[in-house]
């Protein structure tokens, strides 16, 4: 699983830091390092940019995995620099921002936008394959999720906007249902696509979603 992020515009970061002049920066050594949005290089780059802006950077760290249990320990190790700051700027996905907010009693500011949970198909190229809907249909759709890969999330086949196997919204993207049709045809399983799919249960696990492992 990779949490795909992109850096917010510097203007937006600046706006969020309005009135907060002493900043401690946290990066993440896992997904955000791989996507080059919150690894060591990006954290140091942010440090320079904030200093140019006149902010005081009281310290920085790159936590191995910002969303796991070790985050509390990593923050404790930096407690001195954190206590002299008046906010934490987090360069991880929203999971890390959330986790850090649980341990810190001062403003925690996201520097990144979390886009999706995705796969890297070729270096530097990420795409979303699962919307984490809670009701997996991949067994009927040859491993391609129509809820995720179709712009409209259609369950019963393509819309009329598809053209030459591409999506009407973005011709650089494949039409999910054209791909599903091709794969099912190759598998001799087109009957799966002919089957009516009823409206989806969007309350299978009502939000906010939780689960407990027995």
């Amino acid at each position, binding site marked *: 699983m990779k949490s795909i992020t992109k850096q917010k515009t510097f203007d937006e970061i600046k706006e969020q830091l309005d009135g907060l002049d002493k900043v401690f920066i946290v990066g993440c050594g896992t997904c955000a390092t791989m996507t080059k949005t919150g690894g060591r290089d990006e954290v140091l780059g942010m440090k320079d940019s904030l200093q140019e802006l006149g902010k005081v950077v009281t310290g920085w760290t790159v936590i191995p995995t910002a969303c796991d249990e070790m985050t509390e320990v990593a923050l404790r190790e930096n407690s001195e620099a954190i206590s002299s700051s008046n906010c934490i700027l987090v360069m991880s996905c929203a999971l890390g921002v959330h986790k850090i907010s649980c341990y810190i009693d001062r403003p925690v500011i996201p520097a990144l936008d979390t886009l999706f949970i995705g796969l890297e198909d070729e270096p530097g190229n990420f795409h979303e394959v699962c919307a984490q809907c809670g009701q997996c249909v991949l067994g009927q759709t040859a491993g391609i999720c129509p809820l995720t890969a179709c712009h409209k999330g259609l369950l019963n086949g393509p819309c009329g906007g598809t053209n030459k196997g591409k999506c009407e*919204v973005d011709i650089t993207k494949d039409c999910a249902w054209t791909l599903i049709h091709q794969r099912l045809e190759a598998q001799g399983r087109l009957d799966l696509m002919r089957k009516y799919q009823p409206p989806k249960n969007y309350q299978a696990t009502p939000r906010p979603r939780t689960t407990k492992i027995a």
Partner: protein
Amino acid sequence: MSTRFKEALNSGEFVITSEIGPPKGTNIEKMHHHIDILKDKVVAMNVTDHQSSVMRFPSIGGCLAVKERGGEPILQMTCRDRNRLALQAELLFAYTRGVMNVLCLTGDAVPVGDHKEAKGVFDLDSVQLLRTIRQLESGKDIGGNDLDGAVEFCAGAIVTPEANPIEPQLLKFEKKVEAGAEFFQTQAIYDLDNFAKFMKYAREFPVKILAGIVLLTSARMAKYMTENVPGIFVPQNLIDELAAAPKGEAINKGIEIAGRMIAALNKDSICDGVHVMAIGREELVPDILTAAGF
């Protein structure tokens, strides 16, 4: 109960429908004018539902105007802007006001329209919407709850005979038929040979097919459509014919072409009728029909 439109479909006559685009705003004069010039020329008029994802006066409002002015409306309903509660509620309302023909569509994507940051709903898709109509007719909503008063509709859908690739679209066409579609209005067709091939396939199903006729207004527009609009193919000879028209005469050539196509479809009983779309130039529809010999 049967609607005028449904009776026409079942009568064996060559059925002609057209389209009304509601206004962007509250000035409904032009829409009324289009309704008035079309209501006696066509069997029924579709009223578009935020066509191309552009926010407009609602389809149901346009349908009521068609009714009030003596025409037969076909309510276009897309799945883009309403969830299953809102879609069912509107169907209940439409029925009580005598709007009893519905065309079920997925709807264009949000980003192609004029509210690009809006949330696209797509809680149901077009196949599910068709089934919803049949469920409401049974006296229950799609939550399985009893209705105090059911509905009855003549329900239809669309199909794109020129889609590339066509197979996934045909599979969906069949799902729409199974879901209860009684009629289909097609995306614009220009290649009559190819359309005849599609009709040979479609004739296997118990549905009425109205061929989509979109008025070509210039060679440029025809070229643009064939290059950019999914599911539309304008043969080169038609583009050449429009290009050869004297300056200012392309629109008349477009009317002639549309009329010629309709006449050919009618003469050879290729399909059950036509759906004529002049896209903002509805006042030209009577000329097209005259050119077709109606």
